[in-house]
């Protein structure tokens, strides 16, 4: 292998590791505060994780709204719950049914 070859391999390796870092799943935070999901509309990539933190004095939950495919169950005040996101979903709090949020998978 000549020195151009080594250089090529090096660049290929560097760019590969670079793109690997950018594909690494991200963690997003949704605060539950003053009876609202903040933000109430979030766009993520498949495999990213969303963490919901309950900052209110009362318990909440995070439940998929359509077919109740998933739910956090009760999130007590000060606690949090996380989920790896696999698909777009409308969700709500089944305790306070008027509290709603949305996750979009890009």
């Amino acid at each position: 292998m000549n020195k151009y070859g080594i250089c090529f391999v090096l660049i290929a390796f560097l760019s590969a590791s670079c793109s690997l870092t950018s594909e690494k799943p991200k963690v997003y935070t949704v605060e539950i505060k003053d009876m609202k999901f903040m933000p109430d509309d979030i766009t993520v990539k498949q495999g990213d994780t969303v963490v919901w933190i309950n900052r209110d004095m009362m318990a909440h939950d995070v439940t998929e709204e359509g077919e109740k495919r998933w739910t956090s169950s009760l999130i007590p005040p000060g606690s949090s719950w996380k989920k790896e996101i696999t698909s777009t979903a409308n969700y709500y709090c089944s305790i306070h049914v008027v509290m709603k949020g949305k996750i979009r998978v890009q």
Partner: protein
Amino acid sequence: MKMIKMLASSSMITLALSVVFTATSLAQSPKLNDAEVASVAVTANQIDINYAAVAKIKSKNPDILKFAETMTNDHKAVIAQAVALVTKLKVTPKDNAVSKKLMADAEKTKKSLLSKSGKAFDRAYIDNEVAYHKAVISTVEGLLIPTAKNAELKALLEKVVPALKTHLSHAEMVQMNFK
């Protein structure tokens, strides 16, 4: 005062509104101190827990029962916060004209609810929840928050308002099923 009392007996909604009206007029003279503000706040929350307890006995409707459960847990959480705060501030909640009026009116409403059953009960309960949350929101925003002197007490009252408004929207949603 006499006229307010006459209005209060006419219906549940005017009763709820007159609580606010009376509370506001009482607020001008004499003014409530923080111990009295705390008492009104705790009483107002306790009343809704009492209504929920009646619903749990009388209703079989899942939406009503779920709403009542939420009211029980949330208003208990508010009372717990209020108790923790007054304990920290070394203030003892003190009965006063406003809290006594709230409790007396609530006893009448409770009696009226207990006399009903089935769908008529569910309708009366949820109608009262809508009216009561509207009245409490007005009392908290119009009387308790402006009257509270201690900053932490004021902050706690401000933090309760979004919960009350969410309860009101939730109650209105359940109410739609009984129209």
